């Protein structure tokens, strides 16, 4: 078995075990309703986390995504309110904006050799600031297309709904897996994560790839913004504060190394599901106070990470130590 798969397998195993424990405590957790909810409610997070995975695989980080999602919602809502452009066109326009925004950050990171953490932090301020300029208030989206999209779902047996946005997330995960693992671009992303200097000397087009990665993240954040706008039928400049941290946590729980170069898109999907599961569990329990909620989330995060570490460690003990590994 390939050693690279270990963290991924550990994550999946932990997820299944955790789900089993939840089920033992609350049998309703296994209903298609809950499963449908997990997909729908985390659709926007899943999409943005796929973009974040690419960024993190390349050794970077993108703190702007939460603000970009908020900006997207506001942009869609305001444009639909002020003009009568058809929604698909607005979506395209928005994706063009967020993609170029991402590309711009990528260009700054590459050409000015500035750390991604800081560039995207400034990007976060910019995107949210731009959202404030569009509107301070939350703006409802009343366009009929939105309610039509919301009503598009496949009713699973047991009353659960597989919604369009849930499906979209699954599609993005699949697309991301193909892109990351089956294309030259994907390998280049991993290459950057393995070491920019070495990648450059090996002939990886570092600049182009960096810009493309952040553009991709920007685009997926835009897509996630569209999904969030559909999800809530509204745009709100204060929405999705801190989602970037959720996305990072999901990526890392999914077994991707923050230092870059190692990880799987599918792991991120499981990471998102684990985060969703933690929340669902806490809500099903329903007895925790506000503060205990936070503490328990922390404890569960900690346990997942430690369990994962432990599993990987135990199984890697069987392997030969890589010689000269960093």
């Amino acid at each position, binding site marked *: 078995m390939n050693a690279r798969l270990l963290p991924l397998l550990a994550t999946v195993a932990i997820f299944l075990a955790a789900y089993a424990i939840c089920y033992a405590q609350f049998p309703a957790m296994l209903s298609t*309703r809950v499963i449908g909810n997990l997909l729908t*409610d985390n659709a926007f997070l899943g999409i943005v986390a796929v973009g974040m995975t690419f960024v993190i695989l390349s050794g970077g980080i993108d703190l702007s995504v939460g603000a970009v999602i908020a900006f997207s919602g506001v942009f869609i809502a305001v444009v639909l309110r002020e003009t009568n452009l058809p929604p698909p066109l607005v979506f395209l326009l928005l994706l063009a904006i967020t993609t170029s925004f991402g590309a711009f950050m990528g260009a700054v990171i590459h050409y000015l050799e500035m750390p991604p953490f800081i560039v995207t932090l400034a990007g976060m301020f910019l995107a949210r600031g731009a959202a404030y300029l569009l509107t301070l208030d939350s703006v409802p989206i009343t366009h009929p297309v939105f309610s039509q999209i919301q009503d598009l779902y496949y009713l699973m047996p047991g009353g659960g709904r597989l919604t369009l946005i849930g499906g979209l997330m699954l599609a993005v995960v699949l697309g991301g897996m193909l892109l990351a693992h089956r294309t030259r671009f994907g390998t280049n992303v991993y290459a950057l994560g393995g070491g920019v200097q070495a990648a450059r000397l090996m002939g990886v087009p570092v600049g182009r790839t960096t810009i493309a990665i952040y553009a991709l993240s920007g685009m997926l954040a835009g897509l996630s913004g569209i999904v969030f706008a559909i999800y809530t039928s509204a745009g*709100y400049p204060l929405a999705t504060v801190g989602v970037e941290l959720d996305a990072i946590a999901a990526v890392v729980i999914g077994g991707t190394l923050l230092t870059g170069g190692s990880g799987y898109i599918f792991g991120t999907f499981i990471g998102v599901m684990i985060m969703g599961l933690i*929340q669902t569990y806490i*809500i099903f329990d329903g007895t925790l106070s506000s503060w205990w909620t936070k503490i328990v989330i922390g404890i569960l995060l900690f346990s997942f990470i430690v369990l994962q570490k432990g599993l990987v460690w135990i199984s890697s003990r069987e392997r030969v130590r890589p010689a000269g590994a960093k």
Partner: protein
Amino acid sequence: QTVGFSQIGSESGWRAAETTLTRMQAEERGITLKFADAQQKQENQIKALRSFIAQDVDAILLAPVVATGWDSVLREAKEADIPVILLDRMVDAPEDLYLTAVGSDLVHEGRVAGQWLVETVGDKPCNIVELQGTTGSSPAIDRKAGFEQAIAGHENLKIIRSQTGDFTRAKGKEVMESFLKAENGGRNICALYAHNDDMAVGAIQAIKEAGLKPGQDILIVSIDAVPDIFLAMAAGEANATVELTPNMAGPAFDALEAYLKNGTVPPKFIQTESKLYTQNDDPAAVYEQKKNLGY
């Protein structure tokens, strides 16, 4: 009976008091309360609502973080025959999607504060500084709007500076310090309007440290009526506050009980009183009354 309660979070003492009171009310009535803290995130609240529906609770209390974006999840609740009652903030959704809303009118609160100032100042010229809530939040927007409505037409009242204090004491203090600096050591300022009491309390400290007398040199009016502002009023350092009661759950549970027992449909909006407290209302006594409510 099981009722799910989706709370915004625990960003302020007022919010903590609302949670405490809701728990107390539920306990009194023998209701099992499923509590979900959303940590300021709408997406978490929607998740919570969906989970409540999946658990088939008997009713849902929702303190929405923002007005928009509830249609589809409320429709799901309706399809599952679960009544939803809104607490303290309104939503932007068709009325048939929720049973009733218990809360105060945020714009009205701002108006009450503004009217108090208009009456107190009379026709003396008065420069007002405003400490806004978190930029973009509905209380900040509505309390600002209400206040501006109240002072509109009174040319002697003018808002000369307005900046966000994020609803917190620390920011309230810091921003007030800059107001004082910017306005000639505070001598240009006649009144402070703060969107919540916490910011007012912070600002009072800043004013004192600048060597002025809050409550006299600068009039102070704010909203919420948390215990600490009554201490300040008792000391003559704050002038007025508009109450936003944290006991939203009491009326909500009453309405729910009536509805479940014999189908009495409550009015769509149960408005709580926006009571104005001034230094004449025996603030020390009010403080004693309020201090153990979990603020």
